Structure formats: structure tokens, C-alpha cells
């Protein structure tokens, strides 16, 4: 079946990014100064992708015989990935030099992983899901272990690779079982006949296996063991990339898998699975984070608990939950990128200055950085009018709408616990006397990334309706 040119026009964001990756590879190969040029090339690429995705938001299309879907929710995810990619790139320009392992391949691998995420968000077939997942994960494994002279980075990469490969195995086995029942791998067929298929025990087994695999990727509780070590061992900008965009991409696939559940406002048998995961992740993440002194490790546990809050929405399984989780993901992405941006500015060589004591008295030395960090910590704790509050609010509302009030209550309890460790950072920055002198190199592009993240957090928090109405419109069509 020959494709029409129209289809190639609609996948222009993918084509532009793919062409950009090849151009970047050539730049890296043939120009001595390529490394200096690549971050700007990547930023330009991501901006083009963002521009093209914005144009596609209101027109949904199914392409290549149902393999790929553009427009609608995939377009919003593409926009999110592109915006987050720009922030990561701005953050990396100065950080990579400081980190002591400065190679142009970092930018290439980031672009590749973003392409994989876009494929995941737009997939209309289980094969495309798998292709996108691998295209995202393999660059992540390499990025985590990018500094091969550092023992902790090597350990992190090894752990992430082995557990990630294991999770992929779950997903493939699940796909095989689903294929055995459906006779095809089309997600469109799966969505249309979800309630018929879900009477079949083998189908549900396969479906849960896939969900377990993606629970690894979103770092939910029983599948979280890799998170703290990997987030701490990887370079700070890579941690920002993995913890935000990787999680969003995994959620985008879960959305596609559960489209039938969300659209019928009916919930499903799988609600219990997600309710258990949500409760355990929220409480475990919040409680263990209380005793962490390393900021990267603390944010890793906070990332587990945030996965729990979003899983509340998956348990609720209605349209409000879909909109709420999308909002939460956008808010979480910019909050975490801002937080990791500030950590990467303050971080010294050899992983120094990532513990809480380095932040003592920061407000006196770097009032701007301390102010931004305080803003982001308030947002992560979920204090209005920052974006984090509305994310949690919409997700809890959706849980109450589908008669899961107890789950919302557990969520509120966990948020209260988490306020302690977020605000402890603020207390250290503002009310403690400065300890030993820390050296911070000024890095304007990283400052710009932090400022952008702050603006986005505030604007999402002050005008939540603008973003939410777009999502609700797309869902209702």
C-alpha cells in the first residue's frame, strides 16, 4: 500500500528531528568545534518540533495503516518533550564542561531519546510502542554511564540497564500474550474492543505484564529499586532528563493502552492494581525521602511519590483523571527540571556540593538561586498558587468523582508528609548560617533554563484553565 505525500507532511516533526540527528552526527564528526555548536543546533531542532506540534494539536490523524497517530494528545506530549528538551540543553552547555566528560555525543543521544519518546506518545500499534521504548531507553542507558571514569556512574548505568532490560522483557511477553488473543497488535482494535477482550484471562495477564513493565519506567513503588542509585549516580542534567521526560513518555503509553477506560468514564478491573501502586508509591516515597541528606537522592524518592500521585488518576480512570494527569505531568516536568537545573549549577566537580549542608545559608550568597529553589520546592510540595498544587488538585478530584475518596485522602496525607522534606531545603537556605565556602561558576544558559522553568511553573499555576481547557477540548472531540 503506497503512502500518500500527505502522510509524510503530517509526520514532519519526526522527519525534522530524524534529519537533525543525522546532521548533528555529521557536525560532531567533521567539525573540531562541533561540540560548541551542537547544543544550539539541538535547541533549534526542538523549537521547530515544538512549533510543528502546536500546529497539529487540533487535527488528529491516523497514519500508515494505524501505526502512528499525530495530533491531539500525542501533539501535546511532543510539545512537552520539545520544551523540556530545550531546558535540558540550556542546562547542559555549562554543566558538561564542569562534569569533566565533555563529548558531543551527549546531544545526539538526547535527540535520539526524544525521538523515541515522540514515537511512544504517538504510537497506534504495540510494535511502534516497543520501537519507541527502545529508542528512548538505549540512549538513556548510555547517557547514565556517559562518564565511564566514574565508579558511581558505571554502577548506575549497569543497574539501570539490567533492570530496564528486565522490564522490557515483561513488556514483550505481555505484547506476545495480547497478540495471541487479538490476532493483531493494533492499539486501535484494542481500544475498540477493550471490554470484550478483558473478559479473557490471558489478555488481562498480558495487559498487566505490560503495565508492570511501564511501572518500572514511571518508577512506581514495587518496581522502584533502581531509582535512587541511578538518579544519584547519573550526571545531574541526565537525571533531569530521565526523571521528567522518561516518566512522561511511559505515562503517554499507559494513556494509549487505557484509552477505552478513560473515555468510558467507567473505571476498570485494573483500578485496583493502580490504587495499590499509588498508595504504596506515595507513602514509600514521602517517608523514605524524610531521611535523605543528598538532594539528588531526595528528589529521586520524591519522584517515586509523584509517580504515586499520578497513579491515583490511573486508578480513577475517567476523563477528568486524564486531563489531571496531563496537567500534573507538565507541572512535574518543569518543577523537576528547574530543581535539577539549580542542583547542577551549585554542584561542584566530582559530585561535591549536592548534600543539604552545601545549601546552608544559600540565601545570603546567591539570593536569586535560593529564591528560585524555594519557589520550586513550594511547587513540588503542592502549595498554591504554584503548578504542583493544581496537578494534585485535579488528580484528587478525579479520584473523588469515581468513588475513591480514600485514595485522595491517602494522597493528601502523603503530601503533608512530603512538605517536611521539601521545606527543609528552604529552611537550610534561609535560616541556617553558611557553612564552608562553596564555589559556583556563573553559567548564564543554565540560569536561563531555571528562569524559564520558574516562569512555566508560575504560569501553569496562575492560569491552569488555559492549559486544561485545551486538553479537555481534545478529549471531548
Amino acid at each position, binding site marked *: 500500500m*503506497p*503512502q500518500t505525500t500527505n502522510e509524510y507532511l503530517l509526520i514532519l516533526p519526526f522527519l525534522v528531528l530524524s534529519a537533525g540527528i*543525522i546532521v548533528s*552526527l*555529521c557536525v560532531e*564528526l*567533521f567539525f573540531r568545534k562541533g561540540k560548541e555548536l551542537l547544543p544550539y543546533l539541538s535547541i533549534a531542532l526542538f523549537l521547530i518540533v515544538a512549533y510543528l506540534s502546536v500546529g497539529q494539536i487540533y487535527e488528529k490523524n491516523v497514519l500508515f495503516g494505524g501505526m502512528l497517530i499525530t495530533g491531539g494528545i500525542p501533539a501535546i506530549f511532543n510539545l512537552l518533550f520539545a520544551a523540556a528538551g530545550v531546558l535540558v540543553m540550556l542546562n547542559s552547555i555549562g554543566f558538561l564542561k564542569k562534569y569533566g566528560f565533555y563529548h558531543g555525543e551527549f546531544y545526539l543521544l538526547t535527540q535520539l531519546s526524544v525521538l523515541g519518546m515522540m514515537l511512544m506518545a504517538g504510537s497506534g500499534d504495540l510494535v511502534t510502542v516497543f520501537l519507541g521504548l527502545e529508542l528512548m531507553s538505549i540512549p538513556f542507558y548510555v547517557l547514565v554511564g556517559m562518564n565511564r*571514569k*566514574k*565508579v*558511581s556512574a558505571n554502577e548506575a548505568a549497569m543497574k539501570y540497564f539490567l533492570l530496564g532490560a528486565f522490564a522490557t522483557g515483561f513488556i514483550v511477553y505481555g505484547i506476545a500474550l495480547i497478540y495471541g488473543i487479538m490476532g493483531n497488535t493494533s492499539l486501535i482494535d484494542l481500544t475498540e474492543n477493550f471490554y470484550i477482550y478483558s473478559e479473557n484471562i490471558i489478555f488481562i495477564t498480558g495487559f498487566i505484564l505490560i503495565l508492570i513493565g511501564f511501572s518500572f519506567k514511571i518508577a512506581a513503588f514495587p518496581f522502584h529499586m533502581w531509582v535512587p542509585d541511578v538518579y*544519584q549516580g547519573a550526571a545531574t542534567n541526565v537525571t533531569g532528563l530521565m526523571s521528567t521526560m522518561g516518566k512522561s513518555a511511559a505515562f503517554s503509553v499507559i494513556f494509549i493502552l487505557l484509552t477505552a477506560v478513560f473515555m468510558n468514564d467507567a473505571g476498570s478491573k485494573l483500578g485496583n492494581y493502580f490504587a495499590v501502586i499509588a498508595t504504596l508509591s506515595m507513602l514509600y516515597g514521602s517517608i523514605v525521602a524524610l531521611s535523605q541528606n*543528598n538532594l539528588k537522592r531526595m528528589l529521586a524518592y520524591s519522584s517515586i511519590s509523584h509517580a504515586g500521585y499520578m497513579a491515583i488518576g490511573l486508578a480513577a480512570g475517567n476523563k477528568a483523571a486524564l486531563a489531571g494527569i496531563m496537567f500534573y505531568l507538565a507541572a512535574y516536568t518543569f518543577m523537576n527540571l528547574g530543581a535539577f537545573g539549580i542542583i547542577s549549577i551549585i554542584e561542584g566537580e*566530582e*559530585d561535591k556540593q549536592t548534600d543539604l549542608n552545601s545549601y546552608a545559608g544559600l540565601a545570603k550568597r546567591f539570593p536569586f538561586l535560593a529564591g528560585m529553589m524555594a519557589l520550586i520546592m513550594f511547587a513540588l510540595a503542592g502549595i498554591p498558587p504554584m503548578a504542583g498544587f493544581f496537578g494534585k488538585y485535579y488528580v484528587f478530584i478525579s479520584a473523588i468523582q469515581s468513588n475513591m475518596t480514600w485514595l485522595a485522602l491517602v494522597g493528601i496525607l502523603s503530601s503533608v508528609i512530603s512538605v517536611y522534606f521539601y521545606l527543609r531545603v528552604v529552611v537550610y537556605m534561609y535560616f541556617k548560617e553558611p557553612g564552608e565556602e562553596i564555589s559556583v561558576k556563573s553559567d548564564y544558559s543554565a540560569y536561563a533554563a531555571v528562569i524559564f522553568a520558574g516562569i512555566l511553573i508560575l504560569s501553569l499555576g496562575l492560569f491552569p484553565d488555559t492549559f486544561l481547557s485545551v486538553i479537555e477540548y481534545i478529549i471531548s472531540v
Partner: protein
Amino acid sequence: MLTEFGKILIFLLIAVIFVLIGFLTARIIRPKRPTHEKLLTYECGEEIQGSPWVKFNARFYVVALIFLIFDVEVVLLFPWALVYKEFGIAGFLTGFLFLVILGIGMIYEWRKGDLEWDRPVIQPPLVKKTEN
């Protein structure tokens, strides 16, 4: 009544029994005179030189990976070569683009020195212990 899988089961059973009979007959008939050389790993009568647990040069793996990539390329090109005429110029260009991208990968390996066995620059291992 036998299902399709039932036939496979019988086939598997016959295969297992066939092999077992072979081993059993060999065990009964063959003469048994073990010597030290015969019991060594390769049992070809030679004295073993050193341990088999040696470290291989990591470059073997790089070569193996490059080989694997170009091997998979052939697997993908065979079906393409059979049908590309039906798709006209678009089908031809798709395959061509695939080869161009692979070619750029080849250039990358060449330029980074992965195709040369004796890499001139040897980096001393600089492993530093980090805290935690």
C-alpha cells in the same frame, strides 16, 4: 483425537527417546580406557596451555557489534529487494535512505577509529572512588 500441539508432543517424545537410545547403546558398546589427556577440556590429546578464563580485548566486542549491524541490514534488504519495484520511485528511495543512514554510521565508526585494530591513543584507566 489429536490436536496439532499433540502431534508436536509426540514428535518431541520420539526425538528425546531417539537420542537416549543412541547414548545408551554407545555406553554399552564402547571401550572405556580414560587417560589424563582424554579427560581434559578439549579431549584431543594435547596438554592445555594456561587457563581458558582470560580477558578478551574489548575491541572484539566492537567488531562483533559492527558485524551484527551490517548483518541485520542484509536481513532487512532482502525483502525490500524482492518488492521495491511495486512501490516505484518511493520504494527505491526508502531503501536508498536506509543505506545512506547506515553509511553515515559506517563513516562514524571509521572516523572514531573503531575499524583500526591498533588504536594509537591508549587511555590509562583513571578510576576514582566516589563517596557513597
